C-alpha cells in the first residue's frame, strides 16, 4: 500500500461487533485523508439532520497518508462527528502519538456506530481488536483514565479518551490524546460520551510504507531543512511557544478584552505573554510525533495558590482565561488550562464562557445565588473555580457546560455570546483584523482560527504582508488559506508547518508518499473539494447563515490603532461567495459541484 495501511475498523457499539473493512481508496485519493476522508465517510453514511447526541450520529477517527511517516510533523489525525455545539460538521484535528500508533497497528481509521448501553473502551493490539468493559473508568478524569488504561494494557499503549464533562454532555468537551493533545473544539467528546465509549487504547508494531521511498526521503529532508531554517517554524515557536502572540496581537489593538466589551487592548497583557511564561514557569518545550517545531510547553507553577504542573497554555487558551476574563495572573491561567486537559474540555470555549458569565453577572443578568459567589472580571480564583465546577460537572458548572450561547440565551442576552454558529470566537478581534472577521463568519465549524488563519498575513507577515484594516482582496486570500488548510489537515501533517513551508513542499511529500504525479494545483483542489463537502453538509443540516455577533458589526472599537472600526463583514462576504463559485446565499453552484466532482 502507498502510505495507507489499507484497513478501516467499523465498530458497532450496540451490537458489540468489530468489522475490518478495506479502505475506500478512491475516496482516499479524492479527499486525501484525515479531515477530508473522515468527512467523506461521515457525509456518505449519516443523515445531516441527525440529533448529535443520539445513537444515529457516528464518531470517526481518521488518519492521513502522511500520519506515521517522518514527513514534517506527520503525526496528526482527525476526529469527525456532527457537532452538538454548533450543529455543523464537527472535525477536530489532534497531534500527539495516537494517530501514528493506530496506523502501526494496521488501521487507517475507526468508525464508531450506534451507542453502547454500558461504558466500554476499544482495545487494539495489532490484530487483536475488542470492546472491553469500562465501568471502572466511568467517572474518571482524562489523566486518571489514561494512567489506569496504561496499567491495564501496557505502558507502550497510546490512549485517546474523554473526561467526566463529556460523559455528561458538556457541549465543548473534547477527545484527549496522550493526556495533553486534544481534538478539542466542537464538543466531539460529548458525542463519544453519548455512545458510552470512554476510550480507545492502541498499540501497534507494524509499518507504514510509502510509494517512492527514495524520493519521499528527498522530499521530507528538503521540507525539514526549509522548516528548520524559518525564524518561526525553526526556532521561534520552540523558544516562546504560541503565547508569544499575546504581545503582538495586543500591541496591534486586536486582543479582545473582557468578553470583547472593552475593546481589544489589555494593559496587563505582557504579564500573561510567552515571554513571561518562559521566564516564570517553563520547564522545557516538547514536540508531537515527528515534529521539529516543538511548540508545546511543559510548565510548572512551583508555589502559591495556583501551584500545579502540566502542558500549555497555548495562545488562545491563555487569551480566553487572560484578557477575555480580564485576568492578569499567569499562574491562575496556567492552572485553569491544566484543568481543561485533565477534564477534557476546550479551554477557548471554557474561558470565553466564563467571560460571558462575568459580563452577565456585572450587568445584573445572572443572580449571585445561581453562581455561588460574585463573579467579576479580573478574578483569578473564579476562572479556576468555575473550570473545576465544569470538570466535576457540578453546580453552576452544569450551566456553563453548555457554552456561552446557551448561557447567554438562558439569561436573556444571546447577543452577548461572542460566538459564531454557537462556537466561541478565539483571540483575534475581527474589527482590528478584517480578514479574521470573514474567517469566523464563514468557518464550516463555527468560529475558529485554524480554518483559514489570516492573522498570519495580516499581522505576522507570513508568508506575505497585507494590511489588517483593508477589506479588499481578503475574500480571495481567505479562500486560498481555507483550501490549503483543509488540504494540510487532510494529509496528516500539522498546520503549523505553514510557518516555514508552502504548498510546494507539502505537496511534494504527499506526492511521493502516495505515489501520484498530480500537480501542486491539482492537489490544492482537493482541499477546495473538502471545504465544499463540509459546506454541503452544513446546508443540508440547516445551519444558520454566515454572520457575526452584533457587537462586532455595530460596536466601534473604543481605542487603539483600530479605534472607531467595526467588522466590515458584508463588504467582504459577497465577494467571498463569488470567489468560491457559490450563489449569493452561499450555496455552491451546480458548475462548482461538477468542477469538484461532488454529487449534490
Amino acid at each position, binding site marked *: 500500500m502507498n502510505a495507507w495501511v489499507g484497513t478501516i475498523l467499523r465498530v458497532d457499539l450496540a451490537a458489540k461487533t468489530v468489522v475490518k473493512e478495506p479502505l475506500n481508496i478512491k475516496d482516499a485519493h479524492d479527499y486525501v485523508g484525515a479531515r477530508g476522508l473522515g468527512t467523506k465517510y461521515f457525509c456518505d453514511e449519516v443523515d445531516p439532520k441527525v440529533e448529535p447526541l443520539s445513537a444515529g450520529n457516528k464518531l470517526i477517527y481518521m488518519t492521513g497518508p502522511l500520519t506515521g511517516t517522518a514527513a514534517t510533523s506527520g503525526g496528526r489525525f482527525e476526529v469527525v462527528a456532527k457537532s452538538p455545539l454548533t450543529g455543523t460538521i464537527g472535525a477536530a484535528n489532534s497531534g500527539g502519538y495516537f494517530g501514528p500508533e493506530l496506523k502501526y497497528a494496521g488501521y487507517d481509521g475507526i468508525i464508531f456506530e450506534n451507542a453502547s448501553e454500558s461504558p466500554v473502551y476499544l482495545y487494539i493490539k495489532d490484530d487483536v481488536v475488542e470492546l472491553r468493559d469500562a465501568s471502572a473508568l466511568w467517572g474518571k478524569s482524562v489523566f486518571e483514565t489514561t494512567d489506569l488504561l496504561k496499567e491495564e494494557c501496557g505502558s507502550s499503549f497510546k490512549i485517546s479518551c474523554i473526561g467526566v464533562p463529556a460523559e455528561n454532555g458538556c457541549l465543548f468537551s473534547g477527545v484527549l490524546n496522550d493526556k495533553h493533545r486534544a481534538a478539542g473544539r466542537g464538543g466531539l467528546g460529548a458525542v463519544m460520551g453519548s455512545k458510552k465509549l470512554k476510550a480507545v487504547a492502541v498499540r501497534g508494531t507494524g509499518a507504514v510504507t510509502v510509494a517512492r521511498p527514495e524520493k519521499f526521503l528527498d522530499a521530507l529532508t528538503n521540507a525539514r531543512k526549509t522548516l528548520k531554517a524559518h*525564524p*518561526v517554524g525553526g526556532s*521561534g*515557536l520552540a*523558544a*516562546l*511557544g*504560541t*503565547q*508569544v*502572540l499575546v*504581545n*503582538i496581537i495586543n*500591541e*496591534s*489593538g486586536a486582543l479582545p478584552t473582557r468578553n470583547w466589551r472593552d475593546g481589544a487592548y489589555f494593559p496587563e497583557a*505582557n504579564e500573561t505573554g*510567552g*515571554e513571561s511564561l518562559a521566564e516564570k514557569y517553563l520547564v522545557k518545550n516538547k514536540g508531537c510525533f515527528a515534529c521539529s517545531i516543538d*511548540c508545546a510547553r511543559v510548565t510548572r507553577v512551583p508555589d502559591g495558590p495556583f501551584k500545579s504542573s502540566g502542558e500549555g497554555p*497555548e*495562545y*488562545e487558551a491563555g487569551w480566553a482565561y487572560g484578557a477575555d476574563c480580564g485576568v492578569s495572573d499567569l499562574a491562575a491561567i496556567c492552572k485553569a488550562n491544566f484543568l481543561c486537559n485533565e477534564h477534557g474540555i476546550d479551554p477557548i470555549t471554557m474561558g470565553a464562557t466564563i467571560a460571558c458569565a462575568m459580563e452577565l453577572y456585572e450587568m445584573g443578568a445572572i443572580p449571585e445565588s445561581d453562581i455561588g459567589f460574585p463573579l467579576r472580571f479580573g478574578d483569578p480564583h473564579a476562572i479556576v473555580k468555575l473550570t473545576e465546577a465544569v470538570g466535576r460537572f457540578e453546580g453552576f458548572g452544569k450551566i456553563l457546560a453548555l457554552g456561552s450561547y446557551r448561557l447567554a440565551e438562558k439569561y436573556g442576552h444571546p447577543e452577548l455570546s461572542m460566538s459564531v454558529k454557537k462556537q466561541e470566537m478565539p483571540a483575534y478581534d475581527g474589527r482590528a483584523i478584517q480578514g479574521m472577521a470573514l474567517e469566523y463568519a464563514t468557518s464550516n465549524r463555527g468560529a475558529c*482560527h*485554524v480554518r483559514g*488563519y489570516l*492573522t*498570519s498575513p495580516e*499581522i*505576522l*507577515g*507570513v508568508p506575505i*504582508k497585507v*494590511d*489588517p*484594516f483593508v477589506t479588499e482582496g481578503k475574500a480571495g486570500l481567505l479562500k486560498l488559506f481555507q483550501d490549503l488548510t483543509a488540504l494540510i489537515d487532510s494529509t496528516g501533517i500539522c498546520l503549523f508547518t505553514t*510557518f516555514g513551508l508552502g504548498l510546494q513542499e507539502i505537496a511534494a511529500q504527499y506526492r511521493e508518499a502516495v505515489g501520484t504525479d498530480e500537480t501542486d494545483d491539482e492537489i490544492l483542489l482537493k482541499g477546495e473539494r473538502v471545504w465544499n463537502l463540509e459546506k454541503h453538509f452544513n446546508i443540508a443540516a440547516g445551519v444558520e447563515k454566515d454572520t457575526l455577533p452584533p457587537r462586532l458589526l455595530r460596536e466601534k472599537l473604543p481605542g*487603539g*490603532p*483600530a479605534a472607531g472600526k467595526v467588522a466590515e463583514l458584508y463588504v467582504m462576504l459577497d465577494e467571498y461567495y463569488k470567489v468560491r463559485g457559490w450563489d449569493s446565499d452561499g450555496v455552491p453552484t451546480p458548475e462548482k459541484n461538477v468542477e469538484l466532482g461532488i454529487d449534490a
Partner: protein
Amino acid sequence: MKLKFFATYREITRCNEEDIPVPHDVWELLTSLGERYGAAIRVKLFTPDGGKISDDAIILVNGRNILHLKGKDTPLDEADAVSIFPMVAGG
C-alpha cells in the same frame, strides 16, 4: 517617546520598555539602536547589506505596522509608541 521590545529583542536589550528622546523617523530610531546594541541587534533589524529593514523585523508605530504607514520614513513624535518584534507566529 515610548519604545517597547518584545520576544528575542528583550534578550539583547535586557529591557522591556523605555522612554527615549524622539528620533526624526523610524530609520533614525533603528540606526541608533544598532549603534547602542551592536551587531546582535543589527542582524535582526537590517538586511545583511544594512541598506533596508529586515523582512523578519516587525515594527509597529502606535500599533500599526510601518509597512502600512510610510515604511522606514514613518515620522515619529513625542506621543508615539514604537513596538519592535521579531517574526513571530502561533495560534
